[in-house]
């Protein structure tokens, strides 16, 4: 499985790299190749569509304004499983693509212990053992994997409710809802971290690049791996140059 998946993933990444372009300018690093970006936004589009149609089924009285966008209540209900299925398909490819960098490590365990400090911005620079993804990003990824499996199983049971018993369907509704609530909480945090909380991050999913100072600040171990330079030294050097410029101005 893993060899075939790896070969497929390599091939897809190569093909997409030829189809699209990623320009890495001076002072920037390649973060996400074309394939990853296309997958990410495909997953995102179908996740949002599933979320909106799902909300409309979850509590129609509260989301009366959503169903007309999809052609009325029954049409919204009809589209929801198909949106969900496409989300599952694209996320499956994303899973193959990101399986390796998302492996849980000792550094992530330490990151989770520091989560409180991270959330309150107590440390301006991330710990030097934080690689391509930090513990929080990995938590979100694996939460989607688990929820995705639950969505798929319970979703199919509800889709073919005439085949399975009514108790199985009744339990599936609850599990499907719970998985959605976990995803919703993660989704809110994900958007916040990727935009308002960490300037410079959103561009990595649009243009595929990040600034070098972004990399040594948020993912120092990854910075070291791709540039071969020490992240703390790079930080100190930039800090000195800022100070010199400041003195010169005065």
């Amino acid at each position, binding site marked *: 499985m893993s060899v075939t998946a790896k070969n497929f993933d390599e091939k897809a990444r190569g093909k997409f790299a030829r189809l699209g372009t990623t320009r890495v300018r001076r002072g920037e690093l390649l973060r996400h190749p074309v394939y990853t970006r296309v997958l990410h936004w495909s997953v995102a589009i179908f996740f949002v569509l599933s979320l909106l149609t799902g909300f*409309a*089924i*979850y*509590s*129609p*009285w*509260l989301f*009366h304004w959503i*169903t007309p966008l999809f052609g009325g*209540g*029954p*049409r*919204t*209900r*009809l589209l929801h499983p198909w949106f969900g299925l496409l989300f599952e398909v694209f996320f499956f490819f994303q899973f193959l693509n990101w399986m390796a960098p998302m492996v849980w490590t000792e550094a992530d365990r330490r990151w989770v212990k520091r989560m409180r400090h991270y*959330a*309150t*911005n107590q440390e*301006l*620079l991330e710990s030097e053992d934080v690689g391509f993804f930090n513990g929080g990003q990995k938590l979100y990824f694996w939460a989607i994997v688990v929820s995705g499996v639950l969505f798929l199983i319970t979703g199919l049971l*509800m889709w073919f*409710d*005439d085949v399975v018993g*009514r*108790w199985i*369907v*009744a*339990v599936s*509704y*609850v599990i499907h*809802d719970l998985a959605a*609530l976990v995803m*919703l*909480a993660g989704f*809110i*945090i994900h*958007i*916040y971290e990727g935009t*308002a*909380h*960490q*300037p*410079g991050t959103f561009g990595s999913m649009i243009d595929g690049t990040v*600034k070098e*100072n*972004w990399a*040594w*600040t*948020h993912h120092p171990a990854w910075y070291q791996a791709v540039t071969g330079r020490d992240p703390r030294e790079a*930080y100190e050097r*930039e*800090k000195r140059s*800022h*100070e010199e*410029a*400041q003195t010169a*101005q*005065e």
Partner: protein
Amino acid sequence: MANPRTFQIQEISAHPGPVPGRGVRREEAVCKYIDVTTCIGCKACEVACVEWNDHPFRETTFNDTYQTMPTTEWNYYNLIKFVEDERDGNLMWLLRKDQCLHCEDPGCLRACPADGAIIKYENGIVDFQQENCIGCGYCISGCPFDIPKFHPNTKKVYKCTLCSDRVGQGLEPACVKACPTGCLKFGTKSDMVQIAGLRAKQLREVSGFADAGVYDPASIGGTHVVYVLHDIKRPERYGLPANPVIPPSYTYWKWLAKPAGLLMGVLGIGAVFFHRVMYGPKLPQPEPPEVRTGPTEEIDAGRKETL
């Protein structure tokens, strides 16, 4: 619609005798009585139901029984189930008229998430309002009797209305009108339960059905369609659950966890917003020093962007 009681005539000037209709309506709750033991399987009720509801002809599936089709359908609310049973070594048909039982505590209504898609009248009739139905199918798994059926074209769910349109006009349901043996009756809940009880007693004492009884399951608060069965101890033989229940996910989950979940979503958005306001962004380090400018009065705030 005005309450018909409001316009029940109370007094009539210079009229001899009692006021017609006065005191007839003693009870709001209605009920259909089905005596399984006297049903002859003529299917007049099936035809009457299709006729009254103006349903199109439906192709049937033949599965080696006299039954019209395997289950009730979106355009076939009423179906006589021909259960082949045994009594004293001979074949005995259990002819049960399968239809919506109009539960006092309806599982379909409990499960339904759509505002106004299922309503229950004061008289106990549970009615689907298709204009508000979103076709999610929750009612199908909420029902202990497998009654609501999905219409593949309109993508909505349908079931027996207990002829609420006829009952509203003071008429009995179409099936009751058509029944030639009198095994179907329609009236108030207490009257039907009483008649059913008498019939069951007769079956026990006169006809040799020692276990005869009335099916009016207490687990869902009783039903507005009651059956007289030869054997109340084994309702499964007739395709009826002995102890029908509504999955607790439709009673507790819907009213507790759903609003809690939505509240969590709202609080989550609020939390990240105020997090940004309170703690600020995480900028790439080191941050460039602030540009030294002159006193703010020197900056012309009204200038054009290009200059």
